[in-house]
């Protein structure tokens, strides 16, 4: 089934919110949509799904991000550095740094989220990560005042920082981020998620 055309989605958005998508940012548009209580029902009457609209907004925002990033890169380039370096140095930096695995684990977790089917309700994988963080902290014996469960939960909203908190805690005791990565990989939760992974589309 084909996704509705952008103009159809934009017209639907205007009907629902009274705002033109082109006049507000994708971030604002997302917030407006989240405030509509019976959004799914209203969209259904227009033969549009929430996913269609969210995917469209996501695409608009991503294009905007790339446009701004490219412009920022050129500005830096004019001053000192080649555009190519804008995205690469973080990777290079972490590779030669004692905590180099932090970014790689963060990226790996984003990849894992990408590979894992979306959970049916709120929380899902994020909650799994938080629980896993707690388990790892128990194993490493890190005192809670240093990295509290609340702190993990607080940063857990984005997924990736959870791994970072876990690594930070692990570094203090195990002095090896890769050991923590091993814990994450061998986790029971990951095993459960594996069982839920369906066949390739």
């Amino acid at each position, binding site marked *: 089934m084909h996704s509705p055309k952008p103009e159809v989605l934009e017209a639907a958005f205007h009907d629902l919110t009274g705002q033109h998508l*082109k006049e507000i*940012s*994708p*971030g*604002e548009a*997302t917030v407006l949509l*989240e405030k509509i209580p019976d959004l799914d029902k209203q969209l259904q009457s227009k033969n549009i799904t929430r996913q269609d609209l*969210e995917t469209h907004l996501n*695409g608009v*925002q*991503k294009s*905007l*991000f*790339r*446009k*701004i*990033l490219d412009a*920022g*890169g050129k500005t830096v380039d004019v*001053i*000192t*550095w080649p555009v190519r*370096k*804008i*995205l*690469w*140095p*973080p*990777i290079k*930096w972490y*590779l030669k*740094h004692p*905590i180099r695995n932090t970014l*790689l684990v*963060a*990226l*790996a977790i*984003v*990849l*894992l*989220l*990408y*590979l894992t089917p*979306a959970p049916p309700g*709120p929380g*899902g994988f994020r909650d799994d990560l938080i629980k896993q963080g707690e388990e790892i902290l128990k194993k490493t014996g890190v005192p809670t005042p240093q990295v509290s469960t609340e702190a993990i939960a607080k940063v857990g*909203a*984005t*997924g*990736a920082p959870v791994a*970072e908190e876990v690594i930070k805690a692990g570094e203090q005791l195990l002095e090896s981020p*890769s050991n923590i*990565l*091993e814990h994450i*990989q*061998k986790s029971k939760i990951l*095993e459960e998620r*594996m069982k839920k992974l*369906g066949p*390739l589309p």
Partner: protein
Amino acid sequence: MSNPHLHLTTNEQAILAVIPENLRKKVNIETETLMYADTPQRMQIRVKNMQLSAPGLLVFKKKVTEATTVEEVTGLLSTANLTALSEDDLSELYFAMGPDGVSTLIVQMLPHVRSEEDLEALISLCVIRHSLLLSLSPTAASL
């Protein structure tokens, strides 16, 4: 030629004092005032719509989805070469990670900046975060 701008939050600027002065002089500090309240649901949408193109990543995805044991996934993940990602794929990953994720990396990186290369990395991450925040800000519609 003017120094590059470094957008840091006020909390991050407090950490900046630990960076050697000769390096601090090479950047113009600007206060990052843009904010975005991310949610797990928004991140899920970003992750779901990621479009990765590197052949290595596609092979990696295929292998992970075909794996039947945790050990297999462990092996795949520990050998995955994420350093060979293209700029496009990296920007997809940073976009999915969102400004909060990049902020955490910035905070952890800040106290360890000791060389021009480190500084360059910090500036890069700040450019990435500022771009993410700008794309989400109310003024983005006029860009």
